């Protein structure tokens, strides 16, 4: 257990200034006067305290693609981005479709100890879309999986999707759907629109996402299950989810930082750093996503952090892998697109980046209030520390960020997991000095 820490004069949720006293992994007090004598003190003036961020959609690549990322490097990158918990997607090699694999991921996450790693279980064996994996075994394993997803692939077969939605009710699980009609997106390279027509790249039409979301919310309604929509990217998808929620369907949805900031225009240079699935859409879609996040149609922001080694990106577009890293830029992009534009408050950010993702994933120790007696999972944000993204300077093993050279207005400057600093900015080195000595 780490030494007691006092954060003075920090703005909780961007509102009232307060102190935070972290002792024995818990928030012990909101008054610095209560701090133990051996507590290390840091000045929280000008900083915003949020409950530790939770990413419902991360690719840590281990096991199988340790050249792209490992649980250790991914955890470090997550902590630096302000996260205290991540959900590691199942598309590893081998696939996380058995209790053995999910336990391996969870235990490796615990060993590293920088964030809580919650493995996501595959819905179907080997993500092959034909046979349900043993979700019960994964749920009942030590990893206690609650989120199931074939992310990277769509659970396309409607009957299989229905069965999955029904089955996960057994253990209060949720299916997180990668909504992509496979036949409509065969060979697709980018958003189907005017830009794809000009660039001669095969299109990924919005309808391929929207038709699956429409089907799945209706299925969820029919069987009375909850369903989570991964990386929602189109204006039409926002409309469908808004409609579904108005009918009381148990649907939640996530948007990705890159879909809140970038458009298909970025593809014009054929630079594969901008190749991602679902693809960057149009400005109209970006605007709809921001509006959906503002009005609550979209519940959360998740990163879809998808590391790839240089050789899979430093090539021609058609040969490049889909995906971009995003753990360290997510918070800054949310601030840039949602907070600084007046659409969301920091209290809302706590909701979309911590409380709701924790609740969807049933992560009981995360997304808790900043209150006495709660777990000391805390992220300090400096909303005035503008910085320019340097992809090679991140803690991720991969460099495939599309945000290189973009200035973001703020960032996480310290992250505490159960009271232990897992990332601290240079200005707080006093926190870690001696701690390891």
């Amino acid at each position: 257990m780490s030494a007691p820490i006092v954060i003075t004069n920090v703005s909780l949720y961007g509102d009232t200034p307060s102190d935070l006293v972290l002792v024995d992994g818990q928030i012990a007090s909101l008054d610095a006067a209560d701090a133990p004598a051996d507590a290390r003190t840091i000045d929280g003036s000008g900083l915003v305290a949020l409950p530790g961020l939770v990413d419902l959609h991360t690719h840590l690549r281990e096991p199988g693609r340790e050249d792209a990322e490992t649980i250790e490097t991914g955890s470090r990158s997550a902590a630096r981005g302000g996260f205290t918990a991540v959900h590691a997607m199942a598309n590893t090699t081998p696939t996380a479709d058995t209790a053995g694999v999910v336990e391996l991921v969870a235990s490796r996450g615990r060993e590293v100890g920088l964030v809580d790693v919650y493995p996501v279980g595959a819905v179907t064996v080997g993500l092959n879309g034909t046979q349900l994996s043993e979700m019960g075994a994964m749920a009942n394993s030590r990893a206690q999986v609650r989120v199931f997803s074939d992310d990277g692939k769509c659970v396309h077969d409607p009957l299989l999707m229905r069965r999955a939605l029904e089955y996960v009710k057994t253990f209060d699980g949720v299916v997180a759907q990668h909504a992509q009609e496979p036949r409509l997106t065969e060979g697709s390279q980018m958003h189907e629109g005017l830009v794809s027509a000009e660039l001669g790249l095969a299109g990924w039409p919005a309808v391929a996402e929207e038709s699956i979301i429409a089907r799945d919310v209706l299925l969820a309604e029919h069987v009375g299950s909850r369903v989570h929509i991964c990386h929602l990217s189109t204006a039409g998808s926002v409309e469908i989810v808004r409609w579904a929620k108005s009918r009381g369907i148990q649907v939640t949805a996530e948007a990705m930082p890159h879909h809140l900031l970038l458009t298909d225009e970025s593809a014009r240079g054929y630079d594969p750093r901008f190749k991602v699935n679902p693809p960057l859409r149009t400005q109209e879609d970006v605007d709809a996503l921001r509006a959906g996040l503002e009005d609550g149609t979209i519940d959360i922001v998740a990163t879809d952090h998808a590391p790839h080694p240089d050789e899979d990106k430093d090539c021609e577009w058609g040969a490049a892998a889909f995906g971009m890293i995003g753990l360290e830029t997510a918070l800054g992009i949310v601030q840039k697109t949602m907070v600084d534009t007046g659409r969301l408050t920091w209290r809302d950010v706590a909701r979309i980046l911590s409380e709701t993702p924790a609740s969807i994933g049933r992560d009981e120790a995360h997304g808790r209030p900043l209150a006495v007696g709660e777990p000391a999972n805390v992220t300090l944000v400096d909303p005035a520390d503008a910085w320019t993204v340097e992809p090679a300077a991140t803690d991720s093993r991969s460099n495939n960020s599309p945000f290189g050279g973009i200035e973001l207005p703020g960032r996480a400057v310290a992250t505490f997991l159960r009271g232990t600093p897992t990332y601290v900015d240079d200005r707080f080195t006093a926190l870690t000095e001696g701690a390891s000595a």
Partner: protein
Amino acid sequence: MKHLLGTDGLSREDAVLILDTAGQMAATQEREIRKLPTLRGRTVVNLFFEDSTRTRISFEAAAKRLSADVINFSAKGSSLSKGESLKDTALTLQAMGADAVVVRHWASGAAQRLAESGWLHGSVSVLNAGDGTHQHPTQALLDAFTMRRHLMGAAVGDDVTGKGLDGLTVALVGDILHSRVAGSNIALLRTLGANVVVVAPPTLLPYGLEERGEVAVHYTLDDALEAHDLDAIMMLRVQRERMTGGGSGFFPSPEEYTRLFGLDRARMDRLTDHAIILHPGPMNRGLEISAEAADSPRSVIVEQVSNGVAVRMAALYLLLSGEEASA
């Protein structure tokens, strides 16, 4: 000009310069001695990731007529079986001292990537010889050259120097969606002042082409012939793999395609007297074009091939001469 990547970024001024230069190159090709010393000591690499004997030998002839050394490099690969990466190939070419790389690649954007990625340091010029379903600029330029020579010269002697294709109406018929020839032609024809008519089944039209309103679109060839007095008609090759099968076909059958889009005798007879017929080759006789049309006096299909050499000579000259290129 440093690279020739597409016609979409080509100014009218540069396009006309290429056509004018091609005109002078073509004149030298009528002499007994066709070889010119212009690019002596320069190395042109034909880098082909896709088979295209026609395009390769055309570029090879162009480079050799200008006395450049030519290295043919075929690197097979596809999105499925990657083979050698474009980047490693680029590093190899750089090491071999290439001055220009003529690249044909299955991936849209490959030529631009090669030019702009920083893999080729210094002064290597990139000529796009067809990238995926994106662009094939020298094909569009040779088509424009052929049209200009036949359709813009008659009124005032034969000197077409400095002219575009202003006022001409040109139809492109067939698979517009996947055709890099169409992609390059539509952009260049518009730049040069021609009216573009596109004829294709709706399944083979690029997204948003009709809505943009820059070209006239028709769903059958008869409709297009009814609506326009065409000066030139370009029949695009139908790729066999696009046709039918497995629910992925873009049209029901070759027979239906021929009925709606094929250029046969009856449709040819509806063209204006001076109208010419183009085809980028290789032709599917009996599918998109009948033998009668292909072999008629209106057909300039064979001439397109020889003009291709002149246009490619012009492109190589303009990219490889000049102080910029030697910097």
